[in-house]
């Protein structure tokens, strides 16, 4: 169990405010380049035919008119011999065909792709394609899909082949081809049993039963999906709007049988990505198709999705859960029983009860159905299903017992059925500070929102403006400090500046700056002297935003490379440099590396800090070994070997390793007004309290708190894909009818950062990017109940549902 026990008492840069964001100017001035912005000489545009039906098969297709349209350079058909019947090669299992001849949801990219001189010509050609469809019955709701006699959502579906991640992660249940019942995702068992659930109910004073639901919603990312492929002889180069750039090196290698060392990746900035897309096999299709088209046409091919095309995938908390909860009068929860039905992807809904409470008896059953809607995956993030169940259980227990929900939270805090005493001992014995994270978060949050003065019995406070006043609260643990691996190099340039060398994709969390902060901190450099340009393929993949734990993994890599570089730098400063014809004396004659230290990019003697030389002076080439001026020597490293080091770090496996408990907590509070006439919910104030262990960039943490709150409130209140029931057609695949939060949709937000140092990341940190957006997606249920005294357990909490709960609709 690895965690950072070597935390300095003072920091120069880590945790400091006011450090200039490395990407700030580029992004504010419009200079930052995204894949959508990239144009290459002779580049063609590829657009996709999409299915007008929720379930259909292509019986015949005539593409001759499209092929004859001037400006069309290639049409790739589903029945092309190169791709017919072939699956996408991904690291997950490849359950999708490259370009299928059938559709299992409306809007699916299917049948044909056109590459043309312009996007307009490609789209015009698509309209000239004549398709003979076989329309098939479909099913939209998971409960319906599991009924006997339900139409098969995807008759062609077969489980992932053995030896793939998807297969390895699948429990053996699921009925395979010919059924809508899928294997439970992510390797969880279909039934989780902890303790003795019946015993738990017997111990309870009160049994609470209810049902709650979350409907389909999605990413609605800022930059519409696109990518480019260009062939240069036997080498292939790709530009990716994707969070797993390195994975494409693998897929290109597999698909075209070319060595990975001939695949080059460009990973420009990404316009708002929150996971999801990148985890779906489906996301590998267009890049593969563009590579085939680029090879055939001899031109670079950029594939583009339009805004509607972008609505082809969703978040994985499409779920309906039946709850049965047992609790004692004092708020102690004795038993939690869940039965959850998911659509297209599932997770373990009871996870947070297990990881995060002293509840002794837990039973959770998972059913996963395939339906005729786009694939679902973790969009900020996979912890949504457990957060959903966690918040609902705590809300209902507090309400039924007429208790303050913060008291119920504190009563049940713990881990794996053990209480806070056990956790305190765990912290002590593993070298962590012993602090009560949840209590600290709750106390800070209650004070900030005025909880003790404002919280009231449900439905009891009407405001002078006629609206009902409500207070909401949710809590859970922090995650994102427990898994991943990354590798990076570090080079000290001949002018004394430092380059971090690695490839990763950016999603906007200020990672470039935080990595530079850690390197500068550990190496003793000024922050301005360290730079990270993560877009370039340098063949060293850092943990990229593909699975939650980025800074908490990559931060260790940065610490390691900085320490190695410091060692080499001080060795150089104290060594004689042997040239061919002469020797150069050490920068610090007669001293050993341990006699020196580095601060503000200056190397100095510990005993006499006035004896100092800048890093630049020490690393520069003093004299070329060829008969050319020193300026030439400087670019050739002719005097001494360059200071280049690399390091690798593996943080752990997926999830929490046995015996490694989550120690940091988060709590979120809100104040709302419900209009009983319109059913609208106005969120007047939100307070986020996150124990992030250690904030490396406090502004970046606050950014995630603000942004997560806006996303969470938007999801909680309005975000939903709406399908036409008779036809299975998605009705709101655009940013006018799909409503995510605008600036005016949340009142004030107060952010509070707690730093207990109890994370597994560097300096005791945990990740924060996923947490707030996920947890605040279920914040309003408790506030609405507090306002109107009725439950609206059907997310999103749209006005019609609120009015229905009030008996007005």
């Amino acid at each position, binding site marked *: 169990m690895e965690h950072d026990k070597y935390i300095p008492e003072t920091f120069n840069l880590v945790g400091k405010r*006011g450090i*200039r*964001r490395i*990407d*700030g*100017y*580029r*992004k*504010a*001035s*419009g*200079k*930052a*380049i*995204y894949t*959508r*912005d990239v*144009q290459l000489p002779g580049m063609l545009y590829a657009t996709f035919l999409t299915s007008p039906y929720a379930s259909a098969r292509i019986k015949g297709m005539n593409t001759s008119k499209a092929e004859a349209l001037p400006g069309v350079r290639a049409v790739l058909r589903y029945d092309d011999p190169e791709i017919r019947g072939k699956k996408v090669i991904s690291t997950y299992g490849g359950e999708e065909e490259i370009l299928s001849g059938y559709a299992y949801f409306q809007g699916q990219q299917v049948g044909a792709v056109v590459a043309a001189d312009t996007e*307009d010509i490609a789209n015009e050609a698509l309209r000239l394609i004549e398709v003979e469809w076989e329309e098939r019955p479909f099913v939209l709701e998971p409960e319906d899909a599991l009924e006997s006699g339900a139409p098969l959502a995807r008759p062609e579906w077969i489980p992932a082949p053995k030896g793939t991640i998807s297969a390895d992660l699948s429990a053996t249940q699921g009925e395979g081809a010919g059924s809508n019942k899928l294997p439970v995702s992510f390797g969880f068992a279909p039934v989780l049993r902890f303790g003795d659930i019946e015993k738990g109910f017997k111990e309870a004073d009160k049994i609470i039963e209810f049902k709650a639901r979350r409907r389909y919603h999605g990413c*609605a*990312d*800022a*930059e*519409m999906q696109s990518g480019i492929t260009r062939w240069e002889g036997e080498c292939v180069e790709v530009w990716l709007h994707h969070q797993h750039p390195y994975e494409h090196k693998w897929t290109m290698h597999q698909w075209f049988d070319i060595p990975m060392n001939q695949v080059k990746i460009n990973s420009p*900035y*990404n*316009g*708002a*990505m*929150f996971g999801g897309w990148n985890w779906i096999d489906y996301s590998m299709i267009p890049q593969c198709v563009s590579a085939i088209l680029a090879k055939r046409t001899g031109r670079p091919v950029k594939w583009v999705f*339009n*805004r509607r095309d972008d609505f082809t995938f969703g978040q994985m908390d499409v779920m309906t859960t039946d709850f049965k909860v047992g609790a004692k009068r004092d708020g102690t929860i004795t038993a939690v029983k869940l039965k959850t039905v998911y659509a297209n992807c599932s997770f373990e809904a009871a996870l947070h009860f297990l990881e995060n409470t002293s509840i002794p008896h837990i039973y959770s059953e998972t059913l996963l159905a395939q339906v005729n809607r786009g694939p679902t995956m973790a969009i900020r993030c996979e912890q949504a299903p457990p957060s959903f169940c966690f918040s609902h259980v705590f809300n209902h227990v507090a309400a039924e017992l007429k208790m303050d929900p913060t008291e119920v939270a504190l009563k049940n805090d713990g881990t794996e059925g053990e209480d806070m005493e056990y956790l305190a001992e765990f912290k002590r014995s593993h070298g962590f500070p012993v602090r009560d994270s949840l209590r600290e978060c709750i106390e800070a949050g209650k004070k900030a929102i005025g909880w003790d003065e404002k919280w009231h019995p449900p439905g009891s406070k009407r405001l002078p403006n006629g609206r009902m006043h409500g207070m909401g609260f949710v809590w859970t643990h922090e995650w994102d400090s427990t898994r991943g691996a990354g590798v990076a190099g570090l080079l000290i340039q001949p002018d004394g500046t430092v380059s971090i060398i690695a490839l990763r994709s*950016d*999603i*906007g*969390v*200020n990672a470039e700056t935080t990595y530079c902060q850690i390197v500068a901190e550990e190496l003793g450099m000024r922050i301005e002297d360290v730079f990270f340009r993560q877009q370039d393929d340098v063949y060293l993949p850092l943990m990229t935003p593909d699975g939650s734990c980025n800074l908490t993994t990559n931060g260790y890599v940065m610490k390691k490379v900085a320490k190695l570089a410091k060692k080499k730098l001080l060795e150089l400063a104290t060594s004689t440099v042997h040239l061919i014809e002469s020797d150069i004396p050490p920068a610090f004659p007669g001293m050993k590396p341990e006699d020196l230290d580095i601060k503000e990019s200056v190397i100095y003697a510990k005993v006499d800090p006035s004896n100092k030389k800048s890093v630049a002076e020490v690393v520069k080439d003093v004299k070329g070994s060829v008969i050319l001026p020193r300026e030439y020597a400087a670019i050739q490293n002719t005097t001494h070997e360059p200071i280049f080091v690399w390091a690798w770090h593996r943080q752990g496996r997926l999830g929490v390793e046995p015996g490694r408990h989550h120690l940091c907590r988060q709590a979120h509070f809100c104040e709302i007004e419900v209009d009983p006439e319109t059913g609208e919910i106005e969120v007047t104030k939100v307070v986020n309290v996150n124990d992030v262990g250690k904030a490396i960039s406090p*502004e*970046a943490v*606050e*950014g995630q708190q*603000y*942004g*997560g*709150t*806006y*996303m969470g409130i938007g999801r909680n209140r309005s975000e939903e894909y709406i399908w036409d029931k008779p036809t299975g057609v998605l009705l709101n695949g*655009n*940013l*006018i009818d799909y409503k*995510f*939060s*605008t*600036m*005016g949709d*949340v009142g004030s*937000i107060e952010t509070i950062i707690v730093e207990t140092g109890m994370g597994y990341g560097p300096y005791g940190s945990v990740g924060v990017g996923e947490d707030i957006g996920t947890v605040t997606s279920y914040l309003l249920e408790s506030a609405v109940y507090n306002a109107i005294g009725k439950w609206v357990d059907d997310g999103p909490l749209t006005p019609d549902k609120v009015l229905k709960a009030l008996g007005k609709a």
Partner: protein
Amino acid sequence: MNETRNGLTRYSCPYCSNTFDSFEAIKSHIITDHKTELLPEPEGMIKLTINAQKYKIRVEPEWTLYYLIHDQLGLTGTKLMCDHGACGSCTVIMNGRAILSCMTLAIECDGKQIETVEGIAAANHPLIEEYVKHHCMQCGYCTPGFVVAAKALLDKNPHPTEGEVREALAGNLCRCGTYPQHPKAILEAAKKLQDLVEVK
């Protein structure tokens, strides 16, 4: 316009299709009979000023101003997010007003003065530095649209209240939810602009 057949060149008038034997003859015909410059502009030719630079460019009727700016002229700071006039990412300033370039046809922009985020940055407008300082970006894709909308606001209203700032930016979507940071940056930039005016 000129056609060579059997070694003889014939000149055809682009206005009325009459033909002439010499260039001098057609030139004199166009000036006398059509009372105009020698050659008509090709269809779709527009002149406009972008960031104080003059452009004369032939546009297709279906091109949007966004497409002209971003794809044809390479000013890629103007971004396409919703493609339906719902998000503000493609905002540019046209003749002093913030407009959506994805909903404006390029051909309608003949004679217009356009300002994009690149122009605002090149002029060292204090908004840029304040945006960096206040972390008004995460992924950064929508950020230029916010900067342009904010510049248009400050041009018209140099001393906005926070409410006016929020109102002016209510049409800009940010999926990362950076919203609370923008008013802080814009109000600071307004102060800096005021200081600059006082110094002058």
